[in-house]
Structures are given as C-alpha cells and as structure tokens.
C-alpha cells in the first residue's frame, strides 16, 4: 500500500466522489428497507432484486470495492485505512448502499486473510470479493449450545482426505448457500478446545443436506445441516490441524462487536411513542410508558457513546480488550427492551401478525429479538467472559 499524504487524499476524495456519483444508480442510494429481502448476497446462483442492483454490484466489484481494504492480489480494493474512510464517507454522503452483504465478507474473509494458506487466499478471497460463493457458518450443534467447544461433528483422517459425520444447527441460510465453514473435531482424545479444526465444505458434496428451522417470529434464516460420510479434501483445512478454536474465537469477537454496534442504532422511539400513544399537555398520555421510553433512550445513548469512545481509543492505539462482550450483552438486552416497548406503545396494532414494515412487523420483530441474547453467545456467556477475563474473578471449583 502506498503511504498516503494529505494531497493524495484530497485528490482521492474528489475522484471517488465523482466516480460514485457517476456509477451508483439512483435506486441504490437509499437505505436498505426490508433487511435480507432487499440486499444482494451473491452466490453461484445470484439473485438480483432488480437491474440497478446488478449494475451497482458489478461496477463496485470491478474496482475491488466490495472489499475495499483487502489486498489487490486477491481481488480486493487495496485501499489504505485512510482511503477506505474516505470511501465510506463519500458513500455515506451520496447514500450509496453496500453492493454486497455476506458472511464471506464479514466473517470468513478476515479469518482467511489471517490464517489461510496462499492457495486458499488465491481461490476463496477472490470468490468472496466477486460475490461468487454464498458462505454459511457451521459452529453450533444441537447438544452444544453455549458450550460451543463441546461439539461432536467429527472429521476422521483417511490419509488423503477427511470423512465428516455430524449435525450443525443455526446455520444461517444454509439452504441457499454454496459452501459452509465449520468447526469439526479432528482429535477425539485431546482436551475439548485442542482437538478442533476449521474446515471448508461444499454444500453440493455427497452426504450434505439441510432443513430450515421455523422461529417464533414465523420465519427464519436458520437451518439444520447434516453431514453423512462427507468426503472433504485435506487442503480444505484452514490453519493448523487441531488449532481451529483460536480461529473460532477470533471470528466470535468480530461477531459480538458487530452485533453490539448494530443495537446501538438510535431508533427515534419517542416519535413512535407520540404517534401511537399521543400527548396530553405535552406529555405522553401514559406516564409509565413515558418513563420507560425516556429510560430506553438514555440507555441507548450510553451504549452509543461507549462504542464511540472505544473507537476513539482504538484510533489512539489502545486495545479494546474484552469490550466486545459487554457491547454484545448490553446491546442485545437493550434491543429486546426496545422491541417489547414498541409492542406496548403500539397497543392492539402491535399484536398484528403482518409482513409490512409499517403495519404488523412489530410483533414479529419482538419475537425475533428474543434470539439476540442467545445467538453469538448468550447474555450469561458474555457475563462469564466479563467476570473472568475483564474482572479476573476466579473459576469455581466445587
């Protein structure tokens, strides 16, 4: 990467702005409205919701700007952090959407760049940047729950390949995805954290099958995924054999931080409250709800400033440490409270079981948020992590 001087950035900003303005179709300059139904996720059988989405994706892909900071050698944009900040700012100014959303970009890519072999980087990073493979995540198992490292799915060494048997659960979009990155047990005898490897499996291979899981919200991205004597080539292991736990932990930190940040978004709940409950003498007509709304707003601002502070500290060279755990804990508990409050504020309307973003989605969303304090490590697990790693409290020996 080139060292960036102020003059270069000014020129880069102007060029970037001009390019975005010329190449981003108008319809792609608005916030994503309906979550997954409205975004492009890539894959072997890509589904574009409209022509503009395709055009925008292809133009950004050709510049490597689906993954702006990844090395050019693997198809990324090769931008410095400073240049990437300019790109983000200019995209925000014009309201440009991200052209591609995927687990490959958010989770697997960073892990491969850190732990992958040269061959793996050449093949998979390029595919992720180009949106050619839809990746799913295979961590949890039916019996493992919060004790993730107790996983049982086995990969037995057959000399030139592994044979995988077992079952994964909560595999997001596994029914639509092309490949899955999995934690598997490669050493049955070793202590549970030391016998795990990180394996890449193609969903087309013989013996792989999936089944969607319906949630209390009435729908779900989640599936169960089954492996029945699946043959996996040895080159599909990422990092060292039996050292997969460190990769998994690294990925979970990313996941927790991003979940926490997601929930700090300040939804103008007081406006929603005024619309649904109404005002009496300038105050919300229900005094108890009024207190709850104020309290939620204050707590949300607290999380927002805490995240802002962590970002500023990181820029000043301070390590964030185990903060991802308290962001995840606070953020997901807050999000549950927020969605409960919205049901209460909306009254009978909040009980409608609908699809629309304005009418009837409140009830489904509330149901969905019940998972927030479970997925990505339960609230109790986050509290354990804080107690042990941040506060240094001793382990129980009963």
């Amino acid at each position, binding site marked *: 990467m080139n060292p960036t001087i102020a003059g270069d950035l000014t020129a880069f900003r102007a060029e970037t702005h001009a390019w975005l303005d010329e190449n981003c179709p108008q319809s792609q300059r608005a916030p994503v409205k309906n979550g997954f139904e409205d975004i492009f996720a890539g894959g072997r059988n890509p589904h574009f919701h409209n022509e503009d989405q395709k055009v925008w994706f292809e133009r950004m892909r050709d510049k490597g700007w689906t993954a702006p900071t990844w090395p050019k050698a693997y198809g990324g944009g090769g931008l410095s952090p400073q240049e990437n900040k300019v790109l983000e700012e200019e995209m925000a100014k014009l309201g440009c959407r991200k052209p591609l959303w995927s687990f490959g970009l958010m989770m697997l890519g960073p892990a491969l760049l850190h732990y992958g072999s040269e061959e793996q980087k050449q093949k998979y990073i390029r595919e992720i940047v180009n949106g050619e493979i839809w990746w799913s995540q295979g961590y949890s198992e039916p019996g493992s729950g919060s004790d993730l490292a107790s996983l049982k799915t086995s990969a037995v060494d057959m000399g030139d390949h592994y044979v995988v048997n077992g079952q994964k659960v909560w595999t997001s979009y596994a029914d639509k995805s092309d490949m899955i990155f999995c934690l598997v047990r490669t050493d049955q005898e070793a202590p549970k954290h030391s016998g795990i490897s990180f394996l890449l499996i193609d969903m087309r291979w013989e013996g792989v099958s999936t089944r969607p899981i319906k949630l209390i919200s009435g729908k779900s991205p989640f599936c169960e995924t089954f492996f029945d004597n699946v043959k996996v080539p040895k080159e599909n292991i990422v990092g060292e054999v039996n050292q997969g736990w460190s990769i998994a932990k690294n990925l979970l930190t990313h996941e927790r931080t991003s979940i926490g940040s997601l929930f700090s978004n300040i939804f103008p709940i*007081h406006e929603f409250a005024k619309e649904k409950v109404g005002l009496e003498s300038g*105050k919300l007509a229900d005094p108890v709800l009024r207190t709850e709304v104020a309290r939620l707003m*204050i707590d949300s601002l*607290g999380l927002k400033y805490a995240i802002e502070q962590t970002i*500023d500290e990181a820029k000043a060279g301070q390590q964030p440490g185990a903060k991802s755990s308290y962001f995840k804990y606070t953020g997901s508990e807050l999000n549950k409270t927020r969605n409960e409050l919205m049901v209460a504020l909306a009254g009978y309307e909040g009980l409608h079981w609908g699809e629309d973003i304005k009418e009837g989605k409140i009830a489904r969303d509330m149901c969905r948020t019940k998972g927030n304090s479970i997925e990505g490590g339960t609230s109790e697990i986050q509290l354990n992590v*804080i107690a042990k790693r941040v506060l240094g409290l001793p382990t129980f020996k009963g």
Partner: protein
Amino acid sequence: MALILSEEEKMLKSSAKEFLAERAPVEALRRLRDSQDNYGYDRSLWREMAEMGWTALTIDEAYGGLGFGYVGLGQIMEECGRTLAASPMVSTALLGTTVISLGGSEAQKQSLLPEIMEGNMITALAFEEKNSHRPFDVSTTAEKSGEGYRISGKKVFVLDGHVADKLIVSAIADGELSLFIVDAKASGISIERKFMMDSRNAATVSLEGVEVKADDRVGGKDVLEKSLDIARICLSAEMVGSMQEAFDRTIAYLKERQQFGVPIGSFQALQHRAAHMFSEIELCKAMTLKCLQAIDKEDKHLAAKASMLKAKVGEVLKLVSNEGVQMFGGIGVTDDEEIGFFMKRARVAQQTFGDYNYHLDRFASINGF
C-alpha cells in the same frame, strides 16, 4: 472531539489521585465526622487544593484563572469521588465559579473570582426551598427598597451553607427569578447547620429583610439553569469516581473473601451481578466524558445531556453502592468497613441537583414527549 482525555487532562487526573489518596482518604472523612468538626471540611486541605489550581480550573484567564475547562474539573471531581473527599469543591469551585462566570458583572468577577481561586472565600448556592429538587419553585422575595432590595425567605439543603462567606440566593425580584450575592454575615440572616447522612455540610438558611444592592444581582433563571446543568454533569463525574472505587473494592473483596472453602468471587450468582455492574459503569464513564466535553464546546443540547447523565449515573451508583454493601456481607453493614460510606454518599449525591425521577421527566419534556 475524540472521546478520550488529552495528555494534560490525564496528568491532572493522576496528580489529583495521588494527592487525595495521601491527604484525603476515606479515613479523613471518618475523622471529620467523629470529631463533629465545626467546619465539616479540612481548611488546610482546601488551601492546598486551591494552591494546586483546582479552584481556578474553569475560570477565564482574563481573571487570573487557568481556563482549563470543565473536562479538567470533571477529572478532579472524579478523583474526589474515589476518596469521598469532603471539601467545598461542589459549593465553591463548581457552583460559585460557574454562577459568577456566567452571570456576574465585570466588577463581581474582578472582586470575587480571585478570592475564590486563592481559597479565601467559600460560596454557597441557596436555591432549594421544597423537600426535593425544584429549583424554579421559589417563594423567596426580593422587594424593591430604595436603591436595592430586601430579601425574605427560607432556603433548605444549602451545601456548605454554614461555612460560606457569600451566599448566592435565588429570589423573585421584579416578577422574575433572580440570583443575588449576599454576605453570609449580613443582618437578617440566620443559618442552621444540618448533619447529613454522608457526613457533609448542608444548612437551612433563613433570610428576613436582608438588604442587598441592585448590583449584587448575578443573573436570573437562565444562569441558574445552566449553572445547575454544569453542576449536574460535574457532580456525576464525582459519582462515577465513587462507583468505580466502590466497585473496585467489591471486586477485590470477592477475590479475597473465602466461604465454603473457595473465594466468593467464584460463585456465578455474584460474578454475573459484578459483570452487569461493570457494563453499566462503562456506559456511565463514556457518557460523563461526552457531557463534560459538551460543556466546554458549548453544546446547545446541554440540558438534555445533563438530565440524561444525572438520571443514569444516579441509578448506577445506587446499584453499585447497594451491591457493594451486600457483597461485603455482614462486615458491609458495620461502621468499621468503609463500603458503607460510599452508599451514604451515594444517597445524598443522587438527590443533589435532581434525582432519577426528576431527570427522566425533564429529559422526556426536553425531547417533546
């Protein structure tokens, strides 16, 4: 503005920490309490604090101050909260300097600010009249009398009221809320000291036809409201120091105290409560710095921020101070153990300048609901 301390602010904080640990540990507050000290604070300590510039931090350089700002004062307050240092920081270095700087005439600033900075003058803001925080519900009157006014009324919960040289009194003058600087020894004033739960000073002040001059006026409602918002934020900084110290002591105790043959800190029931408190304290710290910076940048949303902060910090300090006592177990409810001092100070600080309910209500009203 990045949400981190500058190098100068960090240095100020660490020097305050060192000084207070040596000169004003919790043990010093216990001694003041047990001796029923006439002043209720250590006067030589206050002079040293003034010499270190703590009274001059927020005062403009034009009047001989340091112009360092409220982020700086907030760091000192936080450290005072850690050791529960009893001093006129709130009444004088915070309220006195702020009211005079915001509402004072040139002459008032020239004459009063240097006296405060040198540690020669204690001020007390006499503005509460009801049984809880209602700063704009004022019955005290200032009636026109010749060239000046005659003030009559009764004020409660006047912090450092019985040791103050100057009282800053709110009264209705010419139909509007006004603040006046009154000499504490003026004829018609009677002051009754009240011992508070936290062993600090507050007083009831009665004024009967106390005569002041027209140019003793030091602003009106706007000055009072903005001064209170600044005070709420800086007091919150003190409260954050207290919660951090109470929490640190509690965690240390959880690691050391053995029950059933193991440290009690290994019990998950206690670990989760401790981890929850940690998360809440982290939010309070970030919010406090955000609000201190908002004072220095003259943020136009200061009122909403002050109420946000005072509500949140009050609730979290209540939680942390109560949990501290509980987690110390039997020893936690004895007078020998210092954790109880934090709980008592917390209760007073929670109500000072408005409690949780007051500020939730105010936050909602400012946001239009």
